């Protein structure tokens, strides 16, 4: 469904990713794992059009998308939930969720259905509905961010470090939710440094190191690989 072929990208003169290739098939959860600065987020940014690729191509449902603007890519229901939540701080939870539907026309009825659906997944958001989003805790913000992504009716949902800065209990909730969302038919591309948890929800995974994909494997194989820790975090562990 999503096919990334040998893309490279830079920030100014600093090369961030080189010859990255990956593939996401319909219905899958694919994890892209790596330490800070490895190029995970950069890969997502090139897919969603925030960063231009210098080489290679990206195809989505057989259409080439790597020269499209971010808003056009969003309209193809490729939804990127950015790192660090990035809610609109001055809007309420509800308004943030509604902003998720900016990529397509939606009727009042549909909008309410969609809001109900998000509340069903995140019942904790209900009492916070009319609060300004900057006042929420990190975990609550992450729920809103994922909820906002779901409002866009994604064909593929790209989550950038959804566990970032959250307490362990909340982190587990987030991963359960990802599994839940996938069970409802949404394809997920998950960027994480939390390898164990990610591999428990993912079908396949890619390891990325200093801007290059160094390994691709089944999640199960990786999960039981003794060397994974070392590969990801260096030999110290």
């Amino acid at each position, binding site marked *: 469904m999503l096919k990334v072929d040998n893309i490279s990208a830079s920030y100014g003169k600093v090369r961030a990713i080189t010859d990255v290739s990956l593939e996401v098939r319909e219905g899958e959860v694919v994890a892209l794992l790596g330490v800070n600065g490895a190029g995970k987020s950069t890969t997502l940014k090139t897919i969603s059009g925030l960063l231009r690729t210098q080489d290679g191509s990206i195809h989505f449902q057989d259409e080439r998308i790597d020269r499209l603007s971010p808003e056009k890519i969003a309209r193809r229901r490729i939804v990127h939930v950015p790192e660090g939540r990035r809610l609109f701080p001055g809007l309420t939870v509800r308004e943030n969720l509604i902003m998720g539907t900016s990529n397509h026309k939606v009727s009042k009825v549909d909008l309410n259905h969609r809001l109900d659906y998000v509340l069903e997944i995140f019942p904790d958001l209900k009492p916070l509905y009319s609060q300004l989003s900057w006042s929420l805790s990190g975990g609550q913000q992450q729920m809103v961010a994922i909820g906002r992504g779901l409002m866009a009716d994604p064909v593929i949902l790209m989550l950038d*470090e959804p566990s970032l800065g959250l307490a362990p209990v909340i982190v587990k909730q987030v991963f359960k939710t990802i599994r839940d969302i996938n069970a409802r038919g949404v394809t997920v591309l998950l960027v994480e440094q939390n390898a164990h948890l990610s591999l428990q929800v993912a079908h396949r995974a890619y390891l990325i190191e200093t801007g290059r994909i160094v390994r691709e494997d089944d999640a199960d194989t990786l999960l039981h690989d003794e060397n994974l820790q070392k590969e990801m975090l260096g030999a110290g562990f």
Partner: protein
Amino acid sequence: MIKQFLKFSPLMLFFAVVPFFLPEGRAGSYYLTLMILSGAYAIAALGMTVLLGYAGQVSLAQAAFFGIGSYAFSILAVKYGQDFWLSLFGAVVIALIFGALIGLLVLRLRTHYLALVTIGFQIITNLVLNNWDFTGGSDGISGIPRPSLFGIDFMSDQNFYWLTLVFITLAAFVVYRLRYSLLGSTLLALREDEIAASTSGISVVAAKILAFSVCAGLAGLGGAFYASGSMYISPNVYTFSQSVTIFAMVLIGGQESIVGTILGAALLIFLPEMLRFLHDYYIAVYGLAVVVIILFMPKGVYGSLASGAEWGWQKLFAQRQTEIPTASTVQQAPPEKAAVRSDEVILKISDLHKYFGGVKAVQGVDITIRRGDVVVLIGPNGSGKTTVLNTMSGIYKATRGEISFCGHDIVNKSAHQISRLGMSRTFQNIRLFAELSVIENVAIGFYPKATVGVVGTLLLRPKGLREDRQAEEKAKQTLLLLGLDRFHEKAKNLSYGEQRIVEIARAIISDPEILLLDEPVAGMNREEKIRLSGILRTISGMGITILLIEHDMSFVSEVSTYLYVMDYGRLISEGVAREVLKDPAVIQAYLGGEIEDA
């Protein structure tokens, strides 16, 4: 210093002989008057070069300072009958004081807010000039004298023009000296990155006030020459639109260029004459020209022409620059402090909290660091490590808690004060002064050690020149020690790994007590990592205590003497690397446990 400044002499010589080529009679004397006025404006525009070009601060009040200079001079000379030179001195000082006050007023302001205050000041100044009896109201002041010195009478336009030229040269020298002194480099640092400047020990406050004072002082000088040159002044010269014109002079010259600014001033004063055939359309064309220049010539007319010429020159005479010597072997620095670890606690953080809105980034962290340690702070992304570092170095104010450093309570100290106490740092996403050369970047770190003041710097006191050289030498040494020799490359043109090294060099040039490093090896390949761990050993060998944030565990186990682990804003483990990395809580924080046990 003076030798390099001599490169301006052809330009000055050119201007000096211009009067001989002017037509005889009325037309010639008219052009000469215009040239005197251009000269006065050029001096004021050079002030803007310092403020806008070097310090990156916007001001639309240069005509007000120009006016203050004109009026101060005229009132001193006409009403109080003071001598020309004393009045000139008074004009500069009074304008400079106003500049310093405005600088003080706008300390916390940036971009459009800054522009607004200066516009406000400009308009109020103009209103006062128009309405105050003391300044002659809208009639202004007439009968303003010209000087004589050593028996030379400057009453004649030609002589006065040459006098103006001498003062333009002096003003250009002040600006040039600032650009290439340690003191002036604080202005550039302010422009490039205020946060990195303050963590390098530069007081942003002092730098801003310096920039505004110099800018206003030069405006005052220019204003005095304008008054004396035209012998009559009235408020309608010192308006907002005149400020815009002076701003445009600098812009056309290309913000940072001294020659460009002088030519820009001449151009904008002569432009109305050249466009005279356009009649009413002149100002419209002028506005349009400003827009077009901004849109299509980001470096200014002069800057664009100059870089075009350079390009052509290189095209024609494709001379390769002399080969830069490859990195010499890493020199071993003489250890300046005892490289032994001791039990002396140099940094102690207790119960630190930092909240952003509803997000509790740090909640109750205690860290103790002893002299000579290499302490590593690890934890998953977003666990609050960088926030701890930022709070320590004064970029954030702690919500609650205490930090003591070498016996000082530093919670309420500003970043530059903390830096001067001996805490240096680097940043996760490297903060170099992008447009400055490698050596300038590093030398700025030496600034807190400089002792010569503003006057000493401008008067070329040998001590100031010595300190500038010393900073440059030390910067070279430090860079070579870390294995980098591309001294004159702009920082933004370096590779990622090299930028890291420059940032570290800038941090250690001041011989800090402690060095904080935020993810120094992120994004580096194996070789670069190995090189960096060597560098850290060298630094540690110099007796500098190190605190770093890192993810790469092999790197961590290799360099660390003690480890703290954070997760979701709290410490979850501490100890030596061997043991901490086996702690199940740590492994779980990094790699995650089982989903189902929640």
